[in-house]
Protein backbone atom coordinates (compact mmCIF):
# COMPACT_ATOMS: atom_id res chain seq x y z
CA UNK A 1 0.00 0.00 0.00
CA UNK A 2 2.85 2.27 0.79
CA UNK A 3 4.48 1.79 -2.59
CA UNK A 4 1.59 2.79 -4.81
CA UNK A 5 0.98 6.48 -5.18
CA UNK A 6 -2.74 6.59 -5.94
CA UNK A 7 -4.21 5.07 -2.77
CA UNK A 8 -1.80 7.13 -0.76
CA UNK A 9 -3.17 10.34 -2.16
CA UNK A 10 -6.70 9.16 -1.57
CA UNK A 11 -5.95 8.46 2.07
CA UNK A 12 -4.59 11.92 2.47
CA UNK A 13 -7.73 13.33 0.94
CA UNK A 14 -10.02 11.30 3.16
CA UNK A 15 -8.60 13.07 6.15
CA UNK A 16 -9.90 16.41 5.06
CA UNK A 17 -13.27 17.51 6.28
CA UNK A 18 -15.54 18.39 3.37
CA UNK A 19 -16.06 22.01 4.21
CA UNK A 20 -14.18 24.06 1.68
CA UNK A 21 -15.14 22.60 -1.64
CA UNK A 22 -12.54 24.57 -3.56
CA UNK A 23 -9.56 22.62 -2.26
CA UNK A 24 -11.31 19.31 -2.17
CA UNK A 25 -10.19 16.68 -4.66
CA UNK A 26 -12.80 14.95 -6.77
CA UNK A 27 -12.43 11.66 -4.94
CA UNK A 28 -13.54 13.25 -1.74
CA UNK A 29 -16.81 14.51 -3.21
CA UNK A 30 -17.84 11.04 -4.19
CA UNK A 31 -16.87 9.54 -0.88
CA UNK A 32 -18.25 11.96 1.65
CA UNK A 33 -22.02 11.58 1.21
CA UNK A 34 -21.69 7.85 0.84
CA UNK A 35 -19.86 7.59 4.11
CA UNK A 36 -22.41 9.81 5.85
CA UNK A 37 -25.34 7.71 4.73
CA UNK A 38 -23.67 4.52 5.71
CA UNK A 39 -22.83 5.72 9.20
CA UNK A 40 -26.41 6.91 9.73
CA UNK A 41 -27.84 3.63 8.62
CA UNK A 42 -25.72 1.35 10.72
CA UNK A 43 -24.92 3.58 13.65
CA UNK A 44 -26.48 1.38 16.31
CA UNK A 45 -25.34 -1.97 15.01
CA UNK A 46 -21.85 -0.67 14.31
CA UNK A 47 -21.66 0.76 17.81
CA UNK A 48 -22.76 -2.58 19.15
CA UNK A 49 -20.12 -4.31 17.07
CA UNK A 50 -17.48 -1.83 18.22
CA UNK A 51 -18.52 -2.52 21.80
CA UNK A 52 -18.20 -6.26 21.31
CA UNK A 53 -14.88 -5.76 19.55
CA UNK A 54 -13.52 -3.73 22.42
CA UNK A 55 -14.70 -6.36 24.90
CA UNK A 56 -12.96 -9.08 22.94
CA UNK A 57 -9.75 -7.15 22.53
CA UNK A 58 -9.68 -6.06 26.18
CA UNK A 59 -10.41 -9.59 27.37
CA UNK A 60 -7.53 -10.86 25.30
CA UNK A 61 -5.27 -7.92 26.14
CA UNK A 62 -5.78 -8.31 29.88
CA UNK A 63 -5.18 -12.04 29.56
CA UNK A 64 -1.86 -11.36 27.85
CA UNK A 65 -0.89 -8.89 30.55
CA UNK A 66 -1.62 -11.68 33.03
CA UNK A 67 0.73 -14.03 31.24
CA UNK A 68 3.42 -11.40 30.89
CA UNK A 69 4.03 -11.37 34.65
CA UNK A 70 3.25 -14.98 35.55
CA UNK A 71 4.79 -15.12 39.00
CA UNK A 72 3.20 -12.06 40.57
CA UNK A 73 -0.16 -12.85 39.05
CA UNK A 74 0.07 -16.46 40.15
CA UNK A 75 0.67 -15.28 43.72
CA UNK A 76 -2.41 -13.08 43.55
CA UNK A 77 -4.44 -16.01 42.28
CA UNK A 78 -3.02 -18.25 44.97
CA UNK A 79 -4.09 -15.76 47.63
CA UNK A 80 -7.58 -15.82 46.12
CA UNK A 81 -7.51 -19.62 45.95
CA UNK A 82 -6.57 -19.97 49.61
CA UNK A 83 -9.32 -17.58 50.59
CA UNK A 84 -11.76 -19.70 48.60
CA UNK A 85 -10.53 -23.12 49.71
CA UNK A 86 -11.32 -22.65 53.41
CA UNK A 87 -15.03 -21.93 53.17
CA UNK A 88 -15.39 -24.40 50.30
CA UNK A 89 -13.77 -27.18 52.34
CA UNK A 90 -15.94 -26.39 55.33
CA UNK A 91 -18.98 -26.46 53.10
CA UNK A 92 -18.00 -29.85 51.74
CA UNK A 93 -17.52 -31.19 55.26
CA UNK A 94 -20.97 -29.99 56.21
CA UNK A 95 -22.33 -31.53 53.07
CA UNK A 96 -21.03 -34.90 54.19
CA UNK A 97 -22.36 -34.21 57.68
CA UNK A 98 -25.75 -33.79 56.11
CA UNK A 99 -25.47 -37.34 54.79
CA UNK A 100 -24.74 -38.47 58.33
CA UNK A 101 -27.69 -36.42 59.45
CA UNK A 102 -29.94 -38.44 57.15
CA UNK A 103 -28.64 -41.61 58.73
CA UNK A 104 -29.39 -40.16 62.13
CA UNK A 105 -32.95 -39.52 61.07
CA UNK A 106 -33.22 -43.20 60.27
CA UNK A 107 -32.41 -44.01 63.85
CA UNK A 108 -34.68 -41.44 65.44
CA UNK A 109 -37.18 -43.61 67.33
CA UNK A 110 -39.48 -43.58 70.32
CA UNK A 111 -39.32 -46.22 72.99
CA UNK A 112 -42.64 -47.18 74.55
CA UNK A 113 -42.50 -48.93 77.94
CA UNK A 114 -45.58 -50.95 78.80
CA UNK A 115 -46.94 -51.34 82.30
CA UNK A 116 -45.17 -54.10 84.27
CA UNK A 117 -48.42 -56.01 84.59
CA UNK A 118 -48.86 -56.35 80.86
CA UNK A 119 -48.50 -59.87 79.53
CA UNK A 120 -47.66 -60.98 76.03
CA UNK A 121 -51.26 -61.06 74.82
CA UNK A 122 -51.88 -57.57 76.13
CA UNK A 123 -48.67 -56.32 74.63
CA UNK A 124 -49.78 -57.53 71.19
CA UNK A 125 -53.05 -55.62 71.57
CA UNK A 126 -51.21 -52.51 72.61
CA UNK A 127 -48.91 -52.86 69.63
CA UNK A 128 -51.99 -52.93 67.38
CA UNK A 129 -53.29 -49.81 69.04
CA UNK A 130 -49.95 -48.08 68.57
CA UNK A 131 -49.85 -49.09 64.94
CA UNK A 132 -53.31 -47.62 64.49
CA UNK A 133 -52.05 -44.19 65.59
CA UNK A 134 -51.38 -41.82 62.73
CA UNK A 135 -47.71 -40.98 62.24
CA UNK A 136 -46.40 -44.40 63.17
CA UNK A 137 -44.28 -46.05 60.51
CA UNK A 138 -43.45 -49.36 62.14
CA UNK A 139 -43.13 -50.95 65.55
CA UNK A 140 -41.01 -53.64 67.07
CA UNK A 141 -41.84 -55.39 70.34
CA UNK A 142 -39.05 -56.16 72.74
CA UNK A 143 -39.88 -58.77 75.38
CA UNK A 144 -38.70 -58.39 78.96
CA UNK A 145 -36.10 -61.10 78.44
CA UNK A 146 -34.78 -59.50 75.28
CA UNK A 147 -34.61 -56.20 77.07
CA UNK A 148 -32.67 -57.79 79.89
CA UNK A 149 -30.26 -59.42 77.51
CA UNK A 150 -29.58 -56.15 75.71
CA UNK A 151 -29.22 -54.37 79.01
CA UNK A 152 -26.69 -56.88 80.24
CA UNK A 153 -24.80 -56.75 77.00
CA UNK A 154 -24.57 -53.03 76.87
CA UNK A 155 -23.60 -52.57 80.50
CA UNK A 156 -21.56 -55.68 81.12
CA UNK A 157 -23.31 -56.10 84.48
CA UNK A 158 -23.95 -59.82 84.13
CA UNK A 159 -23.15 -60.65 87.72
CA UNK A 160 -25.06 -57.86 89.37
CA UNK A 161 -28.15 -58.48 87.28
CA UNK A 162 -27.94 -62.24 87.75
CA UNK A 163 -28.51 -61.61 91.44
CA UNK A 164 -31.97 -60.22 90.79
CA UNK A 165 -34.81 -62.54 91.66
CA UNK A 166 -37.12 -61.56 88.84
CA UNK A 167 -36.78 -59.53 85.68
CA UNK A 168 -37.57 -55.94 86.64
CA UNK A 169 -37.85 -54.76 83.05
CA UNK A 170 -41.20 -54.19 81.37
CA UNK A 171 -42.06 -55.22 77.85
CA UNK A 172 -41.08 -52.36 75.55
CA UNK A 173 -41.65 -51.36 71.97
CA UNK A 174 -39.54 -49.40 69.54
CA UNK A 175 -41.64 -47.11 67.39
CA UNK A 176 -40.33 -45.56 64.23
CA UNK A 177 -42.26 -42.39 63.43
CA UNK A 178 -43.08 -41.19 59.95
CA UNK A 179 -41.76 -37.75 60.70
CA UNK A 180 -38.56 -37.03 62.56
CA UNK A 181 -39.61 -33.47 63.21
CA UNK A 182 -39.06 -32.95 66.96
CA UNK A 183 -42.46 -31.32 67.53
CA UNK A 184 -44.32 -34.06 65.66
CA UNK A 185 -42.40 -36.70 67.60
CA UNK A 186 -43.26 -35.07 70.89
CA UNK A 187 -46.95 -34.94 69.96
CA UNK A 188 -46.84 -38.60 68.94
CA UNK A 189 -45.16 -39.49 72.23
CA UNK A 190 -47.90 -37.72 74.17
CA UNK A 191 -50.60 -39.56 72.22
CA UNK A 192 -48.91 -42.92 72.74
CA UNK A 193 -48.49 -42.27 76.43
CA UNK A 194 -52.24 -41.76 76.73
CA UNK A 195 -52.94 -45.26 75.42
CA UNK A 196 -54.11 -47.87 77.96
CA UNK A 197 -51.36 -50.18 79.16
CA UNK A 198 -48.55 -47.75 78.30
CA UNK A 199 -46.45 -46.71 81.23
CA UNK A 200 -44.01 -44.31 79.69
CA UNK A 201 -42.78 -43.10 76.33
CA UNK A 202 -39.20 -42.02 75.98
CA UNK A 203 -37.88 -40.17 73.08
CA UNK A 204 -34.26 -39.34 72.89
CA UNK A 205 -34.48 -36.10 71.08
CA UNK A 206 -31.79 -34.32 72.97
CA UNK A 207 -28.83 -35.69 71.05
CA UNK A 208 -30.63 -35.46 67.71
CA UNK A 209 -31.35 -31.85 68.55
CA UNK A 210 -27.81 -31.26 69.62
CA UNK A 211 -26.44 -32.67 66.39
CA UNK A 212 -28.89 -30.62 64.39
CA UNK A 213 -27.86 -27.48 66.20
CA UNK A 214 -24.25 -28.35 65.66
CA UNK A 215 -24.86 -28.78 61.95
CA UNK A 216 -26.75 -25.50 61.84
CA UNK A 217 -23.90 -23.81 63.67
CA UNK A 218 -21.45 -25.27 61.19
CA UNK A 219 -23.53 -24.02 58.28
CA UNK A 220 -23.63 -20.54 59.74
CA UNK A 221 -19.91 -20.56 60.41
CA UNK A 222 -19.34 -21.66 56.82
CA UNK A 223 -21.56 -18.87 55.57
CA UNK A 224 -19.86 -16.28 57.75
CA UNK A 225 -16.45 -17.54 56.66
CA UNK A 226 -17.62 -17.51 53.07
CA UNK A 227 -18.68 -13.88 53.37
CA UNK A 228 -15.46 -12.92 55.17
CA UNK A 229 -13.19 -14.70 52.73
CA UNK A 230 -15.28 -13.37 49.85
CA UNK A 231 -14.48 -9.90 51.18
CA UNK A 232 -10.87 -11.05 51.37
CA UNK A 233 -10.97 -11.93 47.66
CA UNK A 234 -12.44 -8.49 46.93
CA UNK A 235 -9.61 -6.87 48.84
CA UNK A 236 -6.90 -8.95 47.18
CA UNK A 237 -8.23 -8.25 43.69
CA UNK A 238 -9.01 -4.65 44.57
CA UNK A 239 -5.51 -4.00 45.76
CA UNK A 240 -3.90 -5.68 42.76
CA UNK A 241 -6.09 -3.73 40.37
CA UNK A 242 -5.43 -0.52 42.26
CA UNK A 243 -1.71 -1.02 41.67
CA UNK A 244 -2.21 -1.78 38.01
CA UNK A 245 -4.41 1.30 37.61
CA UNK A 246 -1.68 3.31 39.25
CA UNK A 247 0.96 1.88 36.93
CA UNK A 248 -1.16 2.74 33.89
CA UNK A 249 -2.12 6.16 35.18
CA UNK A 250 -0.51 8.03 32.29
CA UNK A 251 -2.25 5.90 29.75
CA UNK A 252 -5.58 6.48 31.48
CA UNK A 253 -4.99 10.22 31.56
CA UNK A 254 -4.18 10.28 27.87
CA UNK A 255 -7.20 8.27 26.76
CA UNK A 256 -9.45 10.39 28.94
CA UNK A 257 -8.00 13.50 27.33
CA UNK A 258 -8.98 12.23 23.93
CA UNK A 259 -12.51 11.30 24.86
CA UNK A 260 -12.55 7.86 26.43
CA UNK A 261 -15.58 7.14 28.59
CA UNK A 262 -15.19 5.72 32.09
CA UNK A 263 -16.60 2.42 30.87
CA UNK A 264 -13.87 2.27 28.21
CA UNK A 265 -11.15 2.93 30.76
CA UNK A 266 -12.64 0.48 33.23
CA UNK A 267 -13.07 -2.41 30.84
CA UNK A 268 -9.52 -3.85 30.70
CA UNK A 269 -9.29 -3.75 34.50
CA UNK A 270 -12.62 -5.49 34.91
CA UNK A 271 -11.37 -8.24 32.64
CA UNK A 272 -8.14 -8.48 34.64
CA UNK A 273 -10.20 -8.83 37.82
CA UNK A 274 -12.37 -11.52 36.28
CA UNK A 275 -9.28 -13.39 35.09
CA UNK A 276 -7.79 -13.20 38.57
CA UNK A 277 -11.03 -14.54 40.00
CA UNK A 278 -11.26 -17.35 37.47
CA UNK A 279 -7.60 -18.29 37.94
CA UNK A 280 -8.03 -18.21 41.71
CA UNK A 281 -11.13 -20.38 41.43
CA UNK A 282 -9.32 -22.94 39.27
CA UNK A 283 -6.41 -23.01 41.71
CA UNK A 284 -8.89 -23.47 44.57
CA UNK A 285 -10.42 -26.44 42.76
CA UNK A 286 -6.93 -27.86 42.34
CA UNK A 287 -6.14 -27.34 46.02
CA UNK A 288 -9.41 -28.99 47.05
CA UNK A 289 -8.62 -31.96 44.84
CA UNK A 290 -5.13 -32.16 46.25
CA UNK A 291 -6.44 -31.98 49.83
CA UNK A 292 -8.97 -34.65 49.04
CA UNK A 293 -6.29 -36.91 47.66
CA UNK A 294 -4.05 -36.21 50.64
CA UNK A 295 -6.73 -36.99 53.23
CA UNK A 296 -8.64 -39.76 51.51
CA UNK A 297 -6.33 -42.60 52.57
CA UNK A 298 -6.33 -41.93 56.34
CA UNK A 299 -10.03 -41.10 56.27
CA UNK A 300 -11.05 -44.34 54.61
CA UNK A 301 -8.68 -46.27 56.91
CA UNK A 302 -10.31 -44.58 59.89
CA UNK A 303 -13.79 -45.31 58.59
CA UNK A 304 -12.82 -48.93 57.94
CA UNK A 305 -11.63 -49.31 61.54
CA UNK A 306 -15.17 -48.37 62.61
CA UNK A 307 -16.53 -50.89 60.16
CA UNK A 308 -17.95 -48.14 57.97
CA UNK A 309 -17.18 -47.03 54.49
CA UNK A 310 -16.86 -43.34 54.14
CA UNK A 311 -15.19 -41.35 51.44
CA UNK A 312 -14.46 -37.67 51.49
CA UNK A 313 -16.96 -35.60 49.58
CA UNK A 314 -15.83 -34.11 46.30
CA UNK A 315 -17.01 -31.03 44.49
CA UNK A 316 -19.22 -32.15 41.63
CA UNK A 317 -19.66 -30.32 38.33
CA UNK A 318 -22.39 -28.08 39.72
CA UNK A 319 -20.36 -27.23 42.80
CA UNK A 320 -17.26 -26.50 40.73
CA UNK A 321 -19.25 -24.29 38.39
CA UNK A 322 -20.71 -22.40 41.33
CA UNK A 323 -17.27 -21.94 42.85
CA UNK A 324 -15.77 -20.74 39.58
CA UNK A 325 -18.59 -18.32 38.82
CA UNK A 326 -18.51 -16.96 42.36
CA UNK A 327 -14.77 -16.39 42.22
CA UNK A 328 -14.95 -14.81 38.76
CA UNK A 329 -17.76 -12.56 39.89
CA UNK A 330 -15.86 -11.60 43.03
CA UNK A 331 -12.78 -10.77 40.95
CA UNK A 332 -14.84 -8.65 38.61
CA UNK A 333 -16.54 -6.89 41.49
CA UNK A 334 -13.25 -6.24 43.29
CA UNK A 335 -11.83 -4.72 40.12
CA UNK A 336 -14.94 -2.63 39.60
CA UNK A 337 -14.79 -1.22 43.11
CA UNK A 338 -11.07 -0.48 42.85
CA UNK A 339 -11.22 1.15 39.41
CA UNK A 340 -14.32 3.18 40.15
CA UNK A 341 -12.88 4.44 43.40
CA UNK A 342 -9.59 5.21 41.72
CA UNK A 343 -10.84 6.78 38.51
CA UNK A 344 -12.39 9.68 40.35
CA UNK A 345 -8.92 10.58 41.61
CA UNK A 346 -7.43 10.54 38.11
CA UNK A 347 -8.02 13.77 36.30
CA UNK A 348 -6.23 14.55 33.10
CA UNK A 349 -3.70 17.30 33.47
Amino acid at each position, binding site marked *: MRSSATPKRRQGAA*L*KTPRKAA*VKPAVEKAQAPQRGARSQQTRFSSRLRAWGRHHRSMGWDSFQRLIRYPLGNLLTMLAIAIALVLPAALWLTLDSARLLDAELDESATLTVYLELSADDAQSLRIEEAVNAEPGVLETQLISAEQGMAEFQQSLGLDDALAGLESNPLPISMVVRPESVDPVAMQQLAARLEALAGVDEVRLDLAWVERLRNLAELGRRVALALGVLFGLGVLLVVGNTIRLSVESRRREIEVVMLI*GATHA*FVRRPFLYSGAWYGLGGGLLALGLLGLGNHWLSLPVSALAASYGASFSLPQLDVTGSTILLSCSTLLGWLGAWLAVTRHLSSIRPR
Partner: protein
Amino acid sequence: MIAFEHVGKRYGGRFEALAHLNFRVARGEMVFLTGHSGAGKSSLLRLIMRLEKPSRGRVVVAGHDIAQLHASQVPFYRRQIGVVFQDHQLLFDRSIFHNVSLPLEIQGVEPREAARRVRAALDKVGLLHREKALPIELSGGEQQRVGIARAVVNKPALLLADEPTGNLDPQLSADIMALFEDFNRIGTTVMIASHDLALIARLRHRILRLSDGRLVADEGAV
Protein backbone atom coordinates in the same frame (compact mmCIF):
# COMPACT_ATOMS: atom_id res chain seq x y z
CA MET B 1 -17.03 27.95 17.00
CA ILE B 2 -15.66 29.28 20.26
CA ALA B 3 -17.27 32.01 22.33
CA PHE B 4 -15.97 33.33 25.63
CA GLU B 5 -18.41 35.62 27.43
CA HIS B 6 -17.11 37.46 30.51
CA VAL B 7 -15.10 34.41 31.45
CA GLY B 8 -13.15 34.35 34.70
CA LYS B 9 -11.27 31.46 36.22
CA ARG B 10 -9.96 31.34 39.74
CA TYR B 11 -7.96 28.55 41.26
CA GLY B 12 -8.31 27.84 44.95
CA GLY B 13 -10.49 30.90 45.43
CA ARG B 14 -7.65 33.41 45.21
CA PHE B 15 -5.40 33.12 42.22
CA GLU B 16 -7.11 34.65 39.22
CA ALA B 17 -5.88 32.83 36.13
CA LEU B 18 -8.32 34.42 33.71
CA ALA B 19 -10.48 37.52 34.01
CA HIS B 20 -13.11 39.24 31.87
CA LEU B 21 -12.35 37.30 28.75
CA ASN B 22 -14.55 38.16 25.79
CA PHE B 23 -13.86 36.90 22.32
CA ARG B 24 -15.23 34.76 19.55
CA VAL B 25 -13.53 32.47 17.10
CA ALA B 26 -15.44 31.76 13.92
CA ARG B 27 -15.70 28.36 12.31
CA GLY B 28 -12.73 27.74 10.03
CA GLU B 29 -10.57 30.44 11.61
CA MET B 30 -6.94 30.03 12.60
CA VAL B 31 -6.00 31.85 15.78
CA PHE B 32 -2.79 32.17 17.74
CA LEU B 33 -2.90 32.60 21.46
CA THR B 34 0.12 34.29 22.89
CA GLY B 35 1.45 35.92 26.00
CA HIS B 36 4.22 35.33 28.52
CA SER B 37 4.15 32.10 30.47
CA GLY B 38 1.57 32.21 33.22
CA ALA B 39 -0.57 34.61 31.21
CA GLY B 40 -3.38 32.08 31.09
CA LYS B 41 -2.91 30.42 27.70
CA SER B 42 -3.05 26.93 29.11
CA SER B 43 -5.97 27.75 31.39
CA LEU B 44 -7.86 29.01 28.38
CA LEU B 45 -7.19 25.82 26.43
CA ARG B 46 -8.13 23.73 29.46
CA LEU B 47 -11.48 25.49 29.56
CA ILE B 48 -12.12 24.70 25.91
CA MET B 49 -11.16 21.07 26.50
CA ARG B 50 -13.49 21.09 29.48
CA LEU B 51 -10.75 20.03 31.86
CA GLU B 52 -11.98 22.95 33.94
CA LYS B 53 -15.19 24.87 34.25
CA PRO B 54 -15.17 28.68 34.26
CA SER B 55 -15.65 30.35 37.64
CA ARG B 56 -17.55 33.13 35.94
CA GLY B 57 -19.10 33.73 32.55
CA ARG B 58 -19.85 31.29 29.77
CA VAL B 59 -17.68 29.24 27.45
CA VAL B 60 -19.55 27.99 24.40
CA VAL B 61 -17.76 25.60 22.05
CA ALA B 62 -19.46 24.18 18.95
CA GLY B 63 -22.82 25.08 20.46
CA HIS B 64 -22.14 23.47 23.84
CA ASP B 65 -22.06 25.56 26.99
CA ILE B 66 -19.25 23.61 28.59
CA ALA B 67 -20.42 24.29 32.14
CA GLN B 68 -23.75 22.64 31.29
CA LEU B 69 -22.19 19.44 29.98
CA HIS B 70 -22.94 16.45 32.15
CA ALA B 71 -19.91 14.40 33.18
CA SER B 72 -21.13 11.53 31.02
CA GLN B 73 -21.25 13.81 27.96
CA VAL B 74 -17.73 15.13 28.42
CA PRO B 75 -15.97 12.22 26.65
CA PHE B 76 -18.21 12.67 23.59
CA TYR B 77 -17.62 16.41 23.67
CA ARG B 78 -13.85 15.90 23.75
CA ARG B 79 -14.01 13.67 20.70
CA GLN B 80 -14.93 16.71 18.62
CA ILE B 81 -11.71 18.41 19.58
CA GLY B 82 -8.26 17.37 18.47
CA VAL B 83 -5.55 18.40 20.88
CA VAL B 84 -1.81 18.62 20.34
CA PHE B 85 0.15 18.79 23.57
CA GLN B 86 3.53 20.33 24.14
CA ASP B 87 4.75 17.05 25.61
CA HIS B 88 2.85 15.03 22.95
CA GLN B 89 1.19 12.74 25.55
CA LEU B 90 2.07 9.71 23.47
CA LEU B 91 1.95 6.24 24.97
CA PHE B 92 5.45 4.89 24.97
CA ASP B 93 4.55 1.23 25.08
CA ARG B 94 2.65 1.37 21.80
CA SER B 95 3.73 1.76 18.23
CA ILE B 96 3.21 5.00 16.33
CA PHE B 97 0.35 3.33 14.49
CA HIS B 98 -1.44 2.41 17.71
CA ASN B 99 -0.86 5.80 19.24
CA VAL B 100 -2.51 7.47 16.30
CA SER B 101 -5.36 4.97 16.17
CA LEU B 102 -6.20 5.48 19.84
CA PRO B 103 -8.97 8.07 19.28
CA LEU B 104 -10.54 5.80 16.67
CA GLU B 105 -10.30 2.83 19.00
CA ILE B 106 -12.06 4.86 21.67
CA GLN B 107 -14.81 5.78 19.23
CA GLY B 108 -15.16 2.18 18.13
CA VAL B 109 -14.25 2.72 14.49
CA GLU B 110 -14.11 -0.53 12.57
CA PRO B 111 -10.45 -1.70 12.45
CA ARG B 112 -10.03 -1.67 8.68
CA GLU B 113 -11.50 1.80 8.40
CA ALA B 114 -9.38 2.88 11.37
CA ALA B 115 -6.19 1.57 9.75
CA ARG B 116 -7.01 3.45 6.58
CA ARG B 117 -7.54 6.70 8.45
CA VAL B 118 -4.45 6.23 10.63
CA ARG B 119 -2.28 5.73 7.54
CA ALA B 120 -3.87 8.77 5.94
CA ALA B 121 -3.05 10.88 8.99
CA LEU B 122 0.49 9.53 9.23
CA ASP B 123 0.96 10.14 5.52
CA LYS B 124 -0.20 13.72 6.00
CA VAL B 125 2.44 14.37 8.66
CA GLY B 126 5.04 12.49 6.61
CA LEU B 127 5.57 9.59 9.01
CA LEU B 128 3.86 6.75 7.20
CA HIS B 129 7.15 4.90 6.94
CA ARG B 130 7.57 4.94 10.72
CA GLU B 131 4.19 3.45 11.68
CA LYS B 132 5.72 0.41 13.36
CA ALA B 133 8.27 2.39 15.36
CA LEU B 134 7.88 3.16 19.05
CA PRO B 135 7.64 6.83 20.06
CA ILE B 136 10.97 6.60 21.83
CA GLU B 137 12.70 5.84 18.51
CA LEU B 138 11.55 9.14 17.02
CA SER B 139 13.04 12.59 17.29
CA GLY B 140 11.23 15.38 19.13
CA GLY B 141 9.88 16.86 15.92
CA GLU B 142 8.68 13.49 14.72
CA GLN B 143 7.00 12.79 18.04
CA GLN B 144 5.21 16.11 17.76
CA ARG B 145 4.03 15.16 14.29
CA VAL B 146 2.69 11.87 15.65
CA GLY B 147 0.83 13.92 18.25
CA ILE B 148 -0.64 16.01 15.44
CA ALA B 149 -1.61 12.92 13.47
CA ARG B 150 -3.40 11.60 16.53
CA ALA B 151 -5.18 14.91 17.01
CA VAL B 152 -6.51 15.01 13.46
CA VAL B 153 -7.14 11.33 12.81
CA ASN B 154 -10.83 11.56 13.71
CA LYS B 155 -11.26 14.75 11.69
CA PRO B 156 -12.15 17.09 14.52
CA ALA B 157 -13.88 20.35 13.74
CA LEU B 158 -11.60 22.09 16.23
CA LEU B 159 -7.89 21.60 16.60
CA LEU B 160 -6.14 22.92 19.70
CA ALA B 161 -2.40 23.02 20.20
CA ASP B 162 -0.52 23.98 23.34
CA GLU B 163 3.01 25.14 22.51
CA PRO B 164 3.33 22.62 19.70
CA THR B 165 6.74 24.00 18.73
CA GLY B 166 7.98 24.48 22.27
CA ASN B 167 11.09 22.37 22.01
CA LEU B 168 11.74 22.47 18.29
CA ASP B 169 14.25 24.37 16.19
CA PRO B 170 12.96 27.15 13.88
CA GLN B 171 12.87 25.06 10.71
CA LEU B 172 10.92 22.21 12.36
CA SER B 173 8.65 24.76 14.02
CA ALA B 174 7.86 26.32 10.65
CA ASP B 175 7.11 22.87 9.22
CA ILE B 176 4.73 22.09 12.07
CA MET B 177 2.96 25.43 11.65
CA ALA B 178 2.63 24.79 7.93
CA LEU B 179 0.95 21.53 8.80
CA PHE B 180 -1.57 23.35 10.98
CA GLU B 181 -2.20 25.79 8.14
CA ASP B 182 -2.92 22.85 5.85
CA PHE B 183 -5.58 21.58 8.23
CA ASN B 184 -7.02 25.05 8.59
CA ARG B 185 -7.19 25.37 4.79
CA ILE B 186 -9.58 22.42 4.64
CA GLY B 187 -11.93 23.97 7.15
CA THR B 188 -10.69 22.95 10.56
CA THR B 189 -10.81 25.66 13.18
CA VAL B 190 -7.32 25.89 14.66
CA MET B 191 -6.22 27.54 17.89
CA ILE B 192 -2.54 27.46 18.78
CA ALA B 193 -1.00 28.68 22.01
CA SER B 194 2.56 29.75 21.38
CA HIS B 195 5.08 32.25 22.63
CA ASP B 196 7.20 32.02 19.51
CA LEU B 197 6.32 35.58 18.53
CA ALA B 198 8.66 35.81 15.58
CA LEU B 199 7.19 32.72 14.00
CA ILE B 200 3.53 33.59 14.48
CA ALA B 201 4.04 37.16 13.32
CA ARG B 202 5.30 35.79 10.00
CA LEU B 203 2.24 33.60 9.54
CA ARG B 204 -0.30 36.43 9.41
CA HIS B 205 -3.21 34.97 11.32
CA ARG B 206 -5.34 36.43 14.05
CA ILE B 207 -3.43 36.76 17.33
CA LEU B 208 -5.03 36.89 20.79
CA ARG B 209 -2.57 38.29 23.28
CA LEU B 210 -3.06 37.47 26.96
CA SER B 211 -1.40 39.14 29.89
CA ASP B 212 -2.14 38.26 33.51
CA GLY B 213 -5.28 36.45 32.48
CA ARG B 214 -6.68 39.36 30.49
CA LEU B 215 -7.04 39.81 26.79
CA VAL B 216 -4.80 42.77 25.99
CA ALA B 217 -4.80 42.60 22.22
CA ASP B 218 -6.76 41.01 19.42
CA GLU B 219 -4.74 41.57 16.28
CA GLY B 220 -5.54 40.82 12.70
CA ALA B 221 -9.12 39.81 13.42
CA VAL B 222 -11.18 39.23 10.29
